[in-house]
């Protein structure tokens, strides 16, 4: 029942569109050919509620198919009953084939799911597979309806074509055929028809790039396993041309390049993969190894440390990242330009307040630590500067407050800290 429900949910949009257009096409064509009986019953409408049969919709949960309310056609209203009935009967399957054609056209637009960036990718993928489902349901509706079994449209077509037979042929025995049809579908006797149709349509259907990507990725993985690294690199490069954001393809190509000795190429791919998966310690370790192999020890140490941190507590890394972002904001504010700075013997605390005010900076001063260096709030500072940055002004104030070695400041946790913690360089920016 669960599977049936899932199947029903997946089939529902296609069936809703297919059955509505199918029945609408019957009613509309009948009306065009002179029979307004269906129009009188409100069936020349694209409102699905007018065409859906409660039983036919519920049948979806039990049977592998559903159906709509049949459109009442009055042959006595036609000018040429046989010919017009034939056209009216064909209109339903033709409408389903029209939907299939429309889906194919739209699928041409949605097939390049990676072309418009990672944000559009899931929508295009879902849209593509949704259209595929709608097309498959509609092609099945068209083909199954053409079977010459009452009450399907096919049974109405052949009495119109064979001389001597009447369009009303077989109406009284319709229930026998309905039971026969259900038995055929339930026992899988029509599976061959269904499978042939689906395979044929899938062959002609515009394939999504995701399918081609999967194929290339599998090809690359297989080549790597077989030791054909150049072939693997080619496959992954082709896949990355479709989707430059595929982490799996980036790491696959990096592995192939590493085996081929192209360490710089591998490093470039791993770095791009890290941008996609920033909290994955294994990528950091991989890159650290590559840095070491390339004799870039400092960068290797940085990645080893981050990998260590991520292995221990991924949250700490996130906090570090957040701190870095905040510090970048402070550094940007230190670059703010000041046209004129004139301080002549003003207390240091006033000068630092000036920095706080003009650059909207959070400046934290450890006055006790400064007192140990014999620098106080009241220590006079002098600076006459023009067209300088806040950083230059701050350095001038701190340089003026103590003769000899200037007081150092640092940037941490989104603040300017005076003096710099740990006695580091003048700025730990």
């Amino acid at each position, binding site marked *: 029942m669960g599977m049936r429900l899932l199947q029903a949910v997946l089939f529902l949009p296609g069936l809703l569109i297919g059955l509505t257009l199918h029945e609408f096409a019957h009613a509309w064509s009948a009306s065009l050919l002179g029979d307004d*009986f269906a129009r009188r*019953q409100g069936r020349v409408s694209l409102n699905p509620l007018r065409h859906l049969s409660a039983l036919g919709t519920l049948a979806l949960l039990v049977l592998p198919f559903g159906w709509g309310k049949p459109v009442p056609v009055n042959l006595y*209203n036609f000018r040429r*009953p*046989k010919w017009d009935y034939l056209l009216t009967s064909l209109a339903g399957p033709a409408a389903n084939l029209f939907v299939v054609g429309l889906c194919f056209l739209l699928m041409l637009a949605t097939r390049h799911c990676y072309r418009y960036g990672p944000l559009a990718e899931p929508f295009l993928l879902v849209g593509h597979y949704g259209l595929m489902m709608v097309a498959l349901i509609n092609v099945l509706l068209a083909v199954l309806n053409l079977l010459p079994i009452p009450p399907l449209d096919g049974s109405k077509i052949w009495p119109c074509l064979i001389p001597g037979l*009447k*369009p009303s042929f077989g109406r009284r025995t319709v229930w026998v055929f309905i039971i026969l049809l259900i038995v055929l579908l339930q026992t899988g006797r029509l599976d061959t028809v269904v499978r042939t149709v689906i395979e044929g349509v899938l062959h002609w259907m515009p394939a999504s790039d995701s399918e081609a990507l999967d194929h290339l990725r599998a090809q690359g993985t297989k080549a790597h396993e077989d030791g054909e690294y150049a072939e693997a690199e080619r496959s992954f490069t082709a896949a990355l041309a479709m989707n430059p954001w595929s982490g799996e393809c980036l790491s696959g190509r990096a592995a192939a390049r590493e085996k081929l000795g192209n360490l710089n190429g591998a490093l470039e791919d791993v770095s791009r993969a890290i941008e996609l998966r920033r909290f994955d310690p294994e990528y950091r370790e991989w890159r650290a190894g590559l840095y070491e192999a390339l004799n870039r020890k400092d960068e290797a140490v940085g990645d080893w440390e981050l990998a260590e941190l991520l292995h221990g507590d991924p949250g700490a890394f996130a906090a570090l990242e957040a701190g870095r972002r905040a510090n970048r904001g402070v550094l940007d504010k230190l670059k703010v330009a000041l046209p004129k700075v004139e301080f002549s013997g003003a207390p240091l605390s006033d000068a630092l307040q000036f920095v706080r005010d003009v650059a909207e900076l959070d400046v934290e001063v450890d006055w006790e630590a400064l007192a140990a260096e014999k620098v106080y709030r009241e220590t006079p500072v002098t600076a006459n500067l023009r067209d300088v940055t806040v950083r230059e002004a701050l350095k001038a104030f701190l340089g003026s407050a103590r003769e000899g070695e200037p007081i150092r400041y640092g940037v941490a946790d989104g603040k300017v800290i005076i003096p710099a913690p740990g006695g580091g360089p003048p700025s730990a920016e």
Partner: protein
Amino acid sequence: MGLRPRPSAAVRGFFLGPGEGEKYNGPGSDSVLGRTMFRALRKLASLPFLWAGQLAGVFHLPVSVPLLDLAWAISRDGNFGRTALMGLYRQEGPEAAQAQAAAWMDQHPRPEIASWAGMLAAGAGDLDQARSYLARGREIGDDPAGMFELLELTIAFHRDDYQRLRQLTASLGARRDLAPSVRKLVLEQGLWQAMLDRQFDQARARAQYLLEVEDNQPADMALLALARRDRDPALIRRCLERTAALPARDKLYFQFLGSLAIGAADDARRSLAELRELDPAMARRAEQVITSYGGPAWA
């Protein structure tokens, strides 16, 4: 005790149906979606009883009637009501069905029930009552199934008002939204009018049109008369084969009309005499038809 919130018209309509004094617009709410959902749910719930009742009806089991009544009570769908009345008609006869239809028209009037009640009244000869049901039905709501036209034609038939029937046939003949049964009746009337008006080419075309759609014994009888007139033995044989299953009284009725149309007065007289013996009422009707055309050719 606090004030109870008043449900909005749409909510009230969804659960309770139209209020007192409101025109019937189908069970359920005032909104199309709500009404359709509510109707669909009620119909779904009543379907098992409808099917069981129909199945029991096939085997003439008395339980068919209460089951069909239950389906109607749950769904309050006019078509289900009509099915229940038909079941009652088969099981207990026209009087019971007529009484039930009258009761339901008072309690839960529906266009479908009005048309069926009218047909029953016409069948019982109460043509004024049938006309009143027709008028009431048209007031209650739409008739997408086209049953009111059928009732109108039936009333004209039972009234033996052939002038009115000719007028109706002419006015309905121009319409293209009729139900199959009504349109077929109109076309058959047109065929025999053409025969009696001696427009034989038109009559032949109409008969062939009717036969193109499905087997039609009145059309075959018209073609038989035309074949006799044209002395076409092959067609006569074919028509006789196709009308072999037609009840004798119907065959005599059409033979009388056909013979009269082609001017075979002796054959017409003989057929009428045989029809009088077999079914005097039908013979009277045949004579009335001819009278409406200006009397029999031999008169």
